[in-house]
């Protein structure tokens, strides 16, 4: 048996070398298919399959407020009350930590450095199971109100900013105007819990006494007790929610608790897109296999006499099939090896193309799992594309091949099988093309979507005056006024405005009350508004159109607000909203609605219209705001002048996240662009492979039918009629392939539904354009064989007799 296998292997190697052209085409075709699959699988492996880099990662859950019972989201952020209430549920959790993002300004350099970090409860590192590389992590005593400020550094920040100083622990560093003692450094392998690129951490210093019950500013991670399953945790937390509702009906009515496995939380949203990509490369591989099967079928037809002789000499069917399968598997392994090399290159490409903020993208690479996947895939494809030709060659009707004196021809030479494979190939290619087309149309629709403002030449950056220095509204107001005054006179600036919220930059909501209507008795009935604190010229800077009423004047003393159209329609559907008064909190002053502006898609094109209100920053100077500069020139040229202007006002305040709004929109559409680009690349690859397949099949068919064509010419067929014969055959195959492909494409459209925007799953333009493209490519691929058929010399063709 083993000797037989070795013999098969040796013979297969010789056949591969003998038919170098075919081997090369097959190996390259397969390498493209396996390379694409390896690259995409490496992403799936890193994002979906590989466990999170924490000890016992299965026990980590993100814990959300579930507000669906009161019309809210299933994954609402948490606040101090949730942290303390839930943490006390010790039967479920071994530990729990809450955290929020932190815009830190590190002073000391030429310009203060804006660094992203996390503010966490002291349990953070313990819950994640991450010991420090240097010093220590937080203790409970660090996390109480007015405790001395301490900070833990990331390995990267320690290396880059502090030169990897081993004696860094114990030193102090000024952050946001306050001195912080460095107590530890995390290892380079540590992955932050919330902010992917967090560079430093400090305790939240929450007050456990009387915590706020109405704020949602944290994300909470819990570590389940060993042995506690997710359903058990859900059941226990449902009971806890009921107890909390009974104890705090005004704030907790309708609040449930929703634990989600951390792995699912991190990458769950990527799953549909990754499956789409896996599907796309799977199609490419199948098409590659179909092409190779066709090549092998052609070769098998040419070797019928050889197989017949082998059968006549005593080889049974299985022996012939084994021989041919060995050949195809050897071919597949060669293709797989080259494919892995292509995959390495593909992974590098994918990582550079991946949209900003893709979780775990740094972990993507070719590891043992990916290599095993490639090997299994290679073996499977070897069998897949080898089995049809092997079966064909090992048929029982071998005597006719012997009788024909070695012309290597019997029956239709696998023509039917070849044509069926081409039809399948065309159908698959069309499905991919439609998928790619729909995603491209989505990307275009997102790019062209009217967001309600004009992002052209707008530069934004976030400033956070340190709370330790700017304690009062008056102090913050003075700081913002000074920043606005300095930035407004920068050359090239047309408007210098500010807003607590900018599009694609997060949001904040609060509850409000309408004058003359009964106030809500509990949180379930509260009216919610997404509010923005802005300067008066923000609307001009963003070119947000006024629909009715007026905008407020700069420093208008009267308490006035401007609302958006959705708020007007939702809360005053049959009456004029202008002149009505609302207030944000029971003790807050009533504010009069003076204007209604157009809706703005703050969450990007895929967002929905929300209830929004704008108020003057002089009434409520928020702790941190976004600067918005509308420029007359290239906004990117104003990045450094902006930083310098802010430094002139306060050398300790850095400008974080400086960038243009157009970049922000491009980044928000980055994932759509990424998927559209990849699927389009794969669809292009599929199309090219399909074209090669059609060319191969039609060339072979013409060669097979040379005699027939000769007869037709001898009987008076014109060249154009012979051309039509070949092209017509292609057209027939293309039509059947299109019909099947269109049916499949409808399913593809449905599968992509969640990723689409501004385009129907059965978009006529996409379907007709891709079908047209496929037919054109099919015809083009058959052009050369058809020309060859036209040039058949009937005398030569008929001379075989």
């Amino acid at each position, binding site marked *: 048996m083993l000797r037989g296998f070795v013999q098969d292997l040796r013979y297969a190697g010789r056949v591969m070398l003998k038919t170098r052209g075919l081997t090369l085409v097959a190996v390259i075709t397969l390498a493209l298919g396996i390379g694409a699959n390896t690259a995409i699988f490496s992403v799936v492996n890193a994002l979906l399959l590989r466990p999170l880099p924490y000890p016992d990662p299965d026990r980590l859950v993100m814990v959300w407020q579930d507000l669906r019972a009161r019309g809210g989201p299933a994954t609402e952020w948490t606040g101090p009350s949730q942290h303390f209430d839930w943490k006390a549920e010790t039967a479920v959790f071994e530990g729990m930590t809450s955290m929020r993002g932190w815009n830190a300004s590190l002073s000391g350099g030429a310009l203060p450095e804006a660094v992203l970090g996390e503010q966490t409860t002291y349990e953070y590192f313990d819950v994640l199971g991450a010991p420090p590389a240097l010093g220590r992590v937080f203790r409970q005593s660090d996390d109480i109100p007015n405790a001395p400020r301490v900070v833990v550094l990331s390995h990267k920040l320690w290396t880059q900013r502090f030169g990897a100083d081993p004696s860094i622990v114990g030193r102090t560093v000024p952050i946001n105007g306050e001195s912080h003692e460095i107590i530890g450094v995390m290892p380079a392998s540590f992955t932050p819990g919330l902010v992917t690129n967090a560079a430093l951490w400090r305790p939240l210093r929450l007050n456990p006494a009387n915590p706020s019950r109405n704020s949602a500013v944290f994300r909470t991670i819990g570590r389940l007790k060993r042995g506690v399953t997710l359903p058990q945790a859900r059941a226990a937390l449902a009971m806890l929610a009921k107890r909390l509702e009974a104890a705090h009906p005004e704030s907790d009515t309708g609040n449930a608790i929703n634990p989600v496995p951390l792995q699912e939380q991190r990458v769950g949203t990527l799953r549909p897109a990754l499956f789409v990509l896996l599907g796309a490369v799977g199609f490419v591989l199948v098409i590659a296999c179909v092409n190779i099967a066709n090549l092998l079928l052609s070769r098998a037809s040419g070797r019928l006499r050889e197989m017949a002789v082998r059968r006549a000499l005593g080889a049974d069917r299985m022996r012939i099939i084994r021989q041919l399968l060995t050949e195809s598997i050897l071919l597949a392994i060669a293709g797989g090896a080259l494919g892995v090399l292509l995959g390495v290159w593909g992974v590098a490409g994918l990582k550079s193309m991946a949209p900003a903020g893709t979780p775990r993208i740094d972990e993507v690479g070719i590891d043992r799992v990916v290599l095993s996947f490639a090997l299994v895939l290679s073996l499977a494809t070897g069998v897949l594309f080898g089995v049809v030709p092997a079966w064909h060659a090992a048929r029982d009707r071998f005597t006719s091949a012997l009788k024909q004196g070695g012309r290597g021809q019997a029956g239709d030479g696998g023509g039917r099988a070849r044509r069926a494979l081409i039809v399948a190939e065309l159908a698959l290619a069309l499905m991919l093309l439609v998928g790619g087309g729909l995603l491209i149309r989505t990307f275009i629709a997102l790019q062209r979507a009217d967001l309600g403002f004009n992002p052209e030449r707008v530069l934004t950056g976030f400033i956070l005056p340190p709370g330790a220095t700017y304690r009062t509204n008056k102090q913050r107001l003075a700081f913002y006024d000074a920043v606005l005054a300095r930035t407004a006179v920068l050359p090239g600036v047309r408007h210098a405005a500010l807003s607590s919220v900018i599009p694609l930059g997060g949001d904040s909501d609060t509850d409000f009350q309408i004058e003359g209507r009964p106030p809500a008795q509990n949180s379930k009935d509260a009216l919610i508004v997404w509010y923005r604190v802005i300067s008066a010229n923000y609307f001009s800077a963003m070119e947000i159109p006024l629909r009715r009423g007026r905008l407020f004047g700069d420093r208008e003393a009267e308490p006035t607000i401007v609302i958006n159209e959705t708020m007007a329609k939702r809360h005053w559907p049959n009456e004029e909203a202008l002149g009505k008064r609302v207030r944000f909190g029971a003790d807050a002053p009533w504010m009069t609605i003076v204007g209604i502006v157009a809706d703005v898609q703050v969450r990007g094109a895929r967002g929905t219209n929300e209830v929004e209100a704008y108020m003057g920053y002089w009434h409520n100077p928020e702790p941190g705001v976004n600067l918005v500069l509308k420029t007359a020139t290239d906004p990117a040229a104003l990045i450094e002048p902006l930083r310098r202007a802010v430094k002139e006002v306060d050398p300790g305040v850095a400008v974080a996240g400086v960038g243009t709004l157009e970049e922000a929109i491009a980044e928000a559409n980055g994932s759509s662009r990424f998927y559209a680009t990849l699927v389009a690349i794969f669809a292009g690859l599929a199309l090219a492979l399909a074209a090669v397949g059609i060319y191969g099949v039609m060339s072979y068919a013409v060669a097979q039918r040379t005699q027939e064509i000769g007869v*037709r010419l001898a009987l008076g067929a014109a060249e154009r*009629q012979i051309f039509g014969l070949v092209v017509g055959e292609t057209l027939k195959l293309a039509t059947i392939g299109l019909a099947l492909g269109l049916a499949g494409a409808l399913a593809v459209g449905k599968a992509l539904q969640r990723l689409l925007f501004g385009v129907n799953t059965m978009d006529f333009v996409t379907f007709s354009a891709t079908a047209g493209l496929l037919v054109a490519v099919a015809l083009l691929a058959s052009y050369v064989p058809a020309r060859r058929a036209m040039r058949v010399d009937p005398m030569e063709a008929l001379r075989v007799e």
Partner: protein
Amino acid sequence: MAFFSRSSQPAATAAGAPEAEALAPNALIALRNIEKSYAHGTSRSYVLRRINADIKEGEFVSIMGPSGAGKSTLLHIIGMHDSAWTGEYYFLDQPVHRLGAKERAKLHKQYIGFVFQSYHLLDHLTVYENLDIPLSYRDIKKAERESMVCDILDKFAIVGKKDLYPNQLSGGQQQLVAVARAVISNPKVILADEPTGNLHTSQGKEIMELFKKLNEGGTTIIQVTHSEVNAGYGSRIIHLRDGWIVDE
């Protein structure tokens, strides 16, 4: 200085190329100094040499000679499948040697029918469809084609076989269909390349009788054959050897 690969020439033509003769009256086909050769590096091997022949309308001509004499090549030149030759070829007074591919194809379609040794029926078409093929290449309307095919099926007594595929017929039946296909467009001349080569004697006789009948009906027949018996059906024999006409 010529680079002939051949050194001996039959005595009859050894004196050199004869002057081009005037066209014979009533000649359907007139061949003058037809030559065909292949280049091999600096040498050239000839398949046909200085072929001069006239074939009148209504003749039944057999071309004979050993294998490799150039019989089939001559037949294909007459059939206008081959255009790579030199000399003059007149078909119904039309100078074929001066015609372009399209005009040759037109002449061929209008006047010539072909019968092959291996029948060359198209395997995936029925008898009916095989007969329809030459008509479909002549832009004849479908209704007219139908009646022509039915006529020929009737004439050749193969109506009962019209829906059969070639592999369901015997060799003789296949050649019968092939002859029917050759005559369906009513050609002036039928070119037959070893039409009985693959048939039993009795089947071959049947086909030759058919040719004779067609010839008596006015169709010119030119056949390539090895068989003296088959050649006996004709009125004239052209003998070829090494590309030369050696006897007539």
